[in-house]
Every structure is written in C-alpha cells, then in structure tokens.
C-alpha cells in the first residue's frame, strides 16, 4: 500500500497528479491531504490512480509536525510501506520529521521511479551529478522532484473521505502570508522566461513579461537582479534561490555563472539569449541566440504569437 500526501492549498496542481501517478506505479494508492479544498475537486485524483482520497480539513499545513503526525497515523491505519510527497516546501519540512518518527529511510528529491532493486536517483552536488540512493529500512519515504514524470490517467474519479485527524494543536502560529496574486508559482511552471543584468533596469522587464504572457510562462531572474531589488526575491532562481526544472527555460541577459546553472540545469530545454558569444551559459544551452535581448525578445514574442495564431 502506498500513501501519498498532497498539499492542495493551491488546488489539485500538476505536481499532485505526478505524485499520485508515481505512487500508482508502485502499488495501491491512498491520497491524503489537508486544508479546505472542496471534496468535489479531489475526486479527480482517482483518474490518476488513487483508490481513495482522505481529507483532514481540521488540519492546515502550518506546522510540519502536525502533518507528520497525521501522515504517520494514516500510514499506520492503511499499512502503507511507501509514502510519497512532491518535493515542495511542505514536504521539505515534513518528510525528514516523518523519517525519524517512522524510522523510514528518506529519498529526498527523487527524479525517477524506484528501480526494481529499491534504489532511486536523486540530484547531488547541486545538479552537477546524480546519486543512487538505497533505503535500508522496510518502509520508504520518497519526495519526488516536480516535472520528473508525466501524470497518467488510468482510471475514474474515486471516493473522498473526510476525517478529523485529531492531531495535537499547531505550535507554529501564522501571522501573515504574502503570496502575490495571479502568478504561476515558479516551481510549478513548465515554461519559464528569465532575465538578468543584461536588461539594464527594472523598467525594461515589460518585454520579459510580454513574452511570458504569450507563452503562458512564469517569470524568473538571476541573483544580482533580485539582490538589487529590480525583481522580487521569490523570482530568483539559482543555488541560493529556487531550483526549477521546467520543460523550457529561456534566459536573456544572464551570463550563466555556475551558481545560476545549479538552479536551472534540470530544465529539459534551455534557450540562451546574450550579446556576448563567450557567455558561459551557451555551454549549458540547447539553443543560443547571440544578440541583444532588447531586439531578440520582442522578435521572439512576435514569432510565438504568429506560431500560436497559426496553430489555433
């Protein structure tokens, strides 16, 4: 039996479907979530392989210890040998706690299915290498990096059961949550348009946002740009910022320092636009445009508009 814990605070997002699909490939899946999402929106998880969804609306994702206790309790009840999370910010806090509580080995940041010999690959050395991890305990915990596998529809809607987990009160009191409205969270985005110091000033970001809008992409930036306040911190991708692995990463005016690459080298396809043909980023790119971002970005935007119009 496989238990998957999903954070559905932002709805049933793609990474949740990935985790259910992942679990289904291992065994029978029960999906567990917390928060206030309407039950009718959860039944769809059955299509991706969940045999049942359990929601505990009395618990929020504020305190990882509460989630840990809830997951442990449900895992015990259903006899789950494998517990899978998406490697999001909640799982990063919950999965290690759960590993200690259940004495179950944790594979943090899996990028593929568990192999037949019980090993699994994870990124190490900030994406410069892969490590193969073996779990020595009978129970396993896996946190799956987003965009590592494709969600697959294998069945129909399933039943949703409401429970009161009865876990101890939260010891973490939330005073304020600041989430900008209407943006695609970077970690969820399949397409990302990013820019760096080459754009010369925050007033020039319009063309980045235009392109992102045309593509349906999220926007990101390099560290210097976040540090000097041209863009908000949560857009900063790289070793110290967010690590992302979209299908397409377009970088304009970013030289591609090793610390930046560490945050984006999991991207499936990288397009680099830079005036300097010697920019190190070209070595990590699939497609390169040696040119001025101020000219290339609007032209690329037009070309994509044309492509979208002819494909509709």
């Amino acid at each position, binding site marked *: 039996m496989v238990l998957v814990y999903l*954070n559905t*605070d*932002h709805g049933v997002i793609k990474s949740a479907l990935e985790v259910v699909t992942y679990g289904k490939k291992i065994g029978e899946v029960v999906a567990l979530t917390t928060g206030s999402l309407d039950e009718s929106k959860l039944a769809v998880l059955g299509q991706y392989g969940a045999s049942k969804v359990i929601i505990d609306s009395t618990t929020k994702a504020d305190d*990882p*210890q509460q989630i*840990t206790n809830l997951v442990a309790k449900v895992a015990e009840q259903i006899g789950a040998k494998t517990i899978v999370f998406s490697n*999001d*910010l909640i799982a*990063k*806090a*919950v*999965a*290690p*706690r759960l590993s*200690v509580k259940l004495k179950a080995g*944790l594979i*943090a*940041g899996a990028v593929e299915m568990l192999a037949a010999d019980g090993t699994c690959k*994870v990124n*190490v*050395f*900030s994406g*410069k*290498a*892969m*490590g*193969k*991890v073996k*779990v*020595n*305990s009978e129970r396993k915990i896996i946190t799956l990096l987003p965009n590592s596998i494709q969600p697959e529809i294998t069945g129909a809607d399933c039943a949703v059961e409401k429970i009161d987990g009865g876990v101890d009160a939260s*010891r*973490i*009191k939330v*005073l*304020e*949550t*600041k*989430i900008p409205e209407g943006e695609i*969270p970077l*970690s969820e985005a399949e397409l990302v348009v990013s820019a760096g110091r080459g754009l010369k000033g925050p007033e020039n970001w319009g063309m980045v946002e235009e392109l992102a809008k045309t593509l349906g992409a999220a926007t990101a930036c390099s560290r210097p740009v976040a540090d000097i306040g041209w863009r908000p*911190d*949560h857009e900063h991708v790289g070793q*110290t910022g967010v690590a992302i692995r979209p299908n*397409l990463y377009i970088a304009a005016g970013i030289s591609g320092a*090793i*610390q930046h690459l560490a945050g984006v080298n999991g991207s*499936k*396809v990288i397009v680099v636009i830079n005036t300097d043909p010697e920019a190190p980023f070209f*070595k990590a*790119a*699939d*497609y*390169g*445009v040696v040119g001025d971002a101020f000219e*290339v970005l609007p032209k*690329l935007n037009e*070309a994509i508009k*044309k*492509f979208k119009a002819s494909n509709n």
Partner: protein
Amino acid sequence: MKILVCISKAPDTTSKIAFTNGNTEFDENGVQYIVNPYDEWYALVRALELKEANGGNVTIITVGPAADDAVIRKALAIGADDAVRVDTEPTDAYFTAMQIAEYAKANGFDLVLTGKETINYNGSQVGGMIAEALDMPYVSLATKLDIEGTTATLEREVTGGVQVVKVDLPLVASCAKGMAEQRIPNMRGIMAARTKPLTVVAPASVESLTTFVGYDTPAPKSAVKLIDPENMDELVSLLHNEAKVI
C-alpha cells in the same frame, strides 16, 4: 540564550565533481573543503547577530572525522564561542541528525540552526530530523529570524511567497537567503579561532536508514545550436518540432 549551529563541510563551489572506486565514492583528490555556504552565511552569521543583540552563547557542531577540524576552525574564525565535533564519518542524513540530536538533548539549546541544505547532497533533511528527535517545532527555509524573550518571529518560504510565523522557543530552523549577509573573518578572528574550545565527543550508536550506492555525472551537453537573431521563426519551429516543448 544558547544557540547550536549545525555545520557541514562541502567542496568549494569551483571544485571538479568526480567519482572514484567504480563511481561509488566522491573523488576528494584536489578538493578544497569549505563550510557549507548556507550553514555559514545564513545560520552561523544570524546566530552571531542574535548573540550580539541579546547575549548568549553560540556553539558550532559538526559530525565528521579529525580532518574536519580545519573546516571547524574556519567557522570559529567567523565568531562562534566554541565547537563540538562528533567523531565519526557521517553516513546519511538520519545518522548525522541523530548524532546532533543526542548532543543537543544532553546540553539543552534554545535554538538549533542549520543551513537550508548542503551544496553537495542537497537533501534539506537534517534540520527536520533533529526537530523530530527533540520534539521541537521546525521552521524550514526561514528567511528572517528575530527573538524577543522566549518567542521567535520568523519569515519562511511558502509556495509562491513568504509567511510570517511566531513560535515559542526552543525551536529548530533551517536558514535560507535573506537571513544574514556573509561575514569575512578578520585576522583577529582567525587567530582567536586557534585557541577556542573544540570538544570531540564519541558518536552514539545509530544505524543509517539510507546508503548512496553509486554516482553518475550527466553526459556532456551537445554543442549549442545557434540561431540567427533575425530569424526567431526558426527558433520557434525548433522548439515546437525538435525540442517539442511548445
């Protein structure tokens, strides 16, 4: 206030990442070890700032062999009061966390800080594991931390934004960007570090829950395909037909 800062060694960011012994071990040949940057820049420096503001004591702890003393001295040069080394090879995150938790349990700390992850294993596991072992609240990826009396106010990363939370001490937090600025040790700090107390403690008997059985380095990327800046239609067509990402 007693603060425990967990540090790990990590290869210098410019190190060549290679493996040896049939790709089962990290090749340390020619590698310079540094204090894991997140442990140093964010956790340790914020601990020192809190001590400077509120008084108290900052202890550094690491799990590793005698060779790691050089890395501990580097951290001490930045300003901690004393250091502890649990004398054993860290085999996995669980093993490491349990060693630290053992020491923390016996010595009682108000605040235990880690970096958000190490730059070599990137697991982001040890902080949460210590918290569970000590039955303390855990705030992960904290970008701000202030203490007033026995209460901590923290800002932490949440999906798509940040959240401000309040927690009673004691607690465990992992520290991310925003927490503090890097400090460069001065000569006085480096001299003082040589004589600061470094206690070596024997490891507790703990098993490992996971084992790294092998490593791979990614295949080198094939050469970049250059596209004429005047011909963005070609780029779009390649992204659609060849790369199949749009």
